[in-house]
């Protein structure tokens, strides 16, 4: 993955830039010693690394504003960073950029149960938002796998999803307002505890803009009352096609599970060896979870079980206790770790129409043979968000490149069947060059023009989302 050549003038000016940043931030909030900037050289897409010019860790909106104002004046690119868990390289720096980390901004500013909102600083982790309200019986719905570590700032930047978004939606459906600092240092407040925008839906535009339009410092989030109960059922099948057909039939039947998770044989085997969740030996398995009152859970599971029976499952296991539920989820939740035990892997994130599941799984299997790399599939089947995990050996020359080529082919296939490159991880640098497979030049130009409005000098996370040649003239004009 190519990154733009750093600006020599900025590199030469490091001392002065650091001094100005130090003048507006508390002691210790500017990290500029080479040994320490290394901590910010990559995010969870660790195949790509580059230490930044320096990193800053402001503690509030005013400090963020001061930092951006300086960088704006001095023409220094800024890469915002949440918790650094991006799988797409969203927080990858360039050598001439300042990393703006929100890790020291993790306060809860307000909880309001009457209006069902929480206001937090954007560095707060996803799970600790729920942690702040669960005693009162509430939770924050989007639940990305990295929720223990990932920050709300990154969730907003990537419009993160999770396993339960079939029912609750993704970040954009649960975000009510933000305080955001523009690249020139001006502070804007969009939305709040009230619903919908009075003018253009700028909040909807900001969510998922990968830190390219502004730095979100505070967020007003919707909190929901916890459901009365939840129960999963595990269903094993002897082919991917049948499992895919079962997903479609469940949705058609008028039940809306909170989650429908899918695992194929390579993933089941890896998981079983790793976590011993007691999964059956089969080609594909579904975990379907429903929520509600006991009566509602019973009614929904009755419908789901009846549909599953028509597809001749090799196993159908309804949870009868908390322990059984935990065991059913244990395998799914350890799937990534289990695959990681086998080898290095690259996790893809394309979304496809649910009806295309069997075809796409078959093609991925064929490509796996062609490329000679194993792949396991574990994903959110209800919404068609695939996560093929391609195994490769980072120490074997050429393996990463082969894996990336395989991944690119899979994502092109997702687009070809009517889907998209990324369902919840974001484009970052990882899928930047594939954007031309989903969008034509005019579509991309319209998006580039949006960034022109918010960040005319193209200083905020400039080398992401768009192919470098598409953004080249704009980046050069800074």
């Amino acid at each position: 993955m190519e990154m733009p050549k750093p600006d020599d003038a900025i590199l030469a000016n490091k001392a002065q830039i650091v001094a100005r940043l130090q003048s507006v931030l508390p002691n210790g909030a500017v990290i500029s010693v080479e040994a320490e900037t290394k901590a910010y050289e990559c995010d969870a897409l660790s195949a790509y690394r580059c230490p930044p010019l320096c990193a800053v860790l402001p503690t509030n909106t005013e400090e963020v504003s001061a930092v951006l104002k300086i960088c704006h004046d001095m023409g220094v690119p800024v890469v915002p960073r949440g918790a650094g868990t991006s799988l797409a390289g969203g927080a990858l720096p360039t050598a001439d950029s300042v990393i703006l980390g929100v890790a020291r901004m993790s306060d809860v500013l307000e909880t309001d149960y009457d209006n069902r909102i929480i206001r937090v600083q954007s560095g707060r982790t996803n799970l600790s938002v729920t942690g702040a309200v669960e005693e009162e019986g509430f939770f924050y719905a989007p639940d990305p796998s990295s929720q223990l570590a990932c920050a709300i700032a990154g969730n907003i930047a990537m419009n993160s999803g999770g396993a339960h978004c079939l029912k609750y939606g993704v970040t954009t459906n649960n975000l009510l307002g933000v305080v955001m600092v523009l690249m020139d240092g001006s502070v804007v407040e969009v939305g709040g505890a009230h619903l919908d925008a009075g003018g253009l839906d700028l909040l909807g535009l900001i969510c998922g803009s990968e830190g390219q339009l502004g730095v979100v410092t505070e967020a007003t989030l919707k909190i929901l009352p916890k459901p009365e109960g939840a129960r999963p059922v595990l269903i094993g099948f002897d082919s991917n096609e049948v499992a895919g057909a079962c997903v479609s039939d469940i949705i058609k039947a008028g039940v809306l599970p909170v989650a429908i998770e899918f695992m194929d044989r390579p993933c089941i085997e890896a998981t079983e060896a790793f976590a011993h969740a007691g999964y059956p030996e089969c080609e594909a398995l579904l975990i379907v979870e429903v929520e509600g009152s006991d009566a509602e859970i019973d009614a929904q599971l009755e419908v789901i079980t009846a549909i599953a029976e028509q597809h001749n499952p090799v196993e159908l296991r309804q949870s009868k206790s908390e322990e059984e539920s935990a065991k059913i989820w244990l395998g799914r939740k350890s799937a990534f770790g289990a695959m990681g035990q086998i080898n290095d892997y690259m996790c893809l994130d394309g979304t496809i129409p649910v009806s295309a599941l069997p075809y796409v799984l078959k093609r991925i299997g064929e490509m796996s043979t062609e490329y000679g790399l194993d792949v396991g599939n574990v994903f959110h089947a209800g919404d068609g968000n695939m996560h093929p995990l391609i195994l490769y050996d980072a120490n074997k020359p050429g393996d990463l490149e082969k894996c990336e080529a395989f991944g690119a082919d899979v994502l092109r296939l997702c687009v070809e069947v009517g889907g998209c490159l990324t369902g919840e991880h974001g484009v970052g640098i990882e899928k930047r060059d594939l954007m031309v497979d989903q969008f034509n030049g005019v579509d991309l130009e319209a998006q580039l023009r949006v960034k022109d409005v918010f960040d005319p000098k193209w200083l905020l996370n400039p080398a992401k989302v768009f192919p470098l040649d598409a953004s080249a003239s704009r980046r050069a004009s800074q």
Partner: protein
Amino acid sequence: MSLKPRDEKQLSEAIAAAKGPLRIVGNGTRGVMCEGDVLTTAAMSGISLYEPGALTVVAAAGTPLAEIEAALAAEGQRLPFEPMDHRGLLGTKGEPTIGGVVAANISGPRRVQAGACRDSLIGVRFVDGRGDVLKNGGRVMKNVTGYDLVKLMAGAHGTLGVISEVAFKVLPDVAATAVLLINGLSDADAVLAMSRALGSPYEVSGAAHTPNGIDGHPVTMIRMEGFKASVAYRAEQLRVLLADLGEGVIETDPARVSAGWKWVRDVEAFDGHEGNVWRISVKPSDAPQVVAGLGANAVLLDWGGGLIWALMPQGADMRAKMRDVRGHATLVRGTDFSRFQPEVGPLASISAGLRAQFDPRGILNAGLMG
């Protein structure tokens, strides 16, 4: 002059060739008034894809809303956001189109549970003010590829482009509905009751209050939808939960329930009454105080108090009355104030900047949003 393109290509040509401002409409039922030649999407019609198993429907902008709702109903599904029909309130005629629903981001009482129109919208195609055909999003419900112009187009009222096609995530219809009715609550107690209900795990899908109800008495309505046994159980639980505020009655008759929520959705109480109609979005707990300060001829609270419909004398400056409250007010019926809340500061510049990028000649519903 009136332009009526039959497809996206003709739409693109019509916009590119326009010499002056265009007034963009579907069938004009939402009462949006602007200067310029009328450009209607009504001739671009039809459902191009409907996959019940993927909860996805795609249709041309001019497709009648009723056609889409009927197609979904035939498969036991529905649009989640319960779009309002403005015809009674505004005295307009014609078939509401799906493009109009999206352009105005129209949502009804179920907004509190299922989100707004924009939350169900997963893809758009549109033609910008240059005449360029653009697409964003697609037909899958999880998509973070590039900027989310889908949300931006919903509620842009045609000022950034003329929508040619829309794609939605739809939801299963429900087997049963129950409504808990509580009579005689003050606005403050009603908002308290609705907050408690919406904060309960009983999946409330509607919470409305009318201080001067159908027969002049306050009525608070709380709706639950789902499986029959579950709905009955939850309605009873909620009745008990709110018993200290007022005695509740549970209504399950489908015809009465449906008529009651249509009455809320379409603000039928204001039909045929003179005056300006304002739609005010606030934090629910601010609603009683806002209502008290309005001096309105009639009000209706929806969204647990977060949406205030107010029937006001002409000339009354709603936005001045709301100066100390966060939120916004839209003039839905009336002409003596701007329709949309004027933006201020950097946000106003950003919105103006976006309009200038998408519509550099300023010809699409010019001046409507600022």
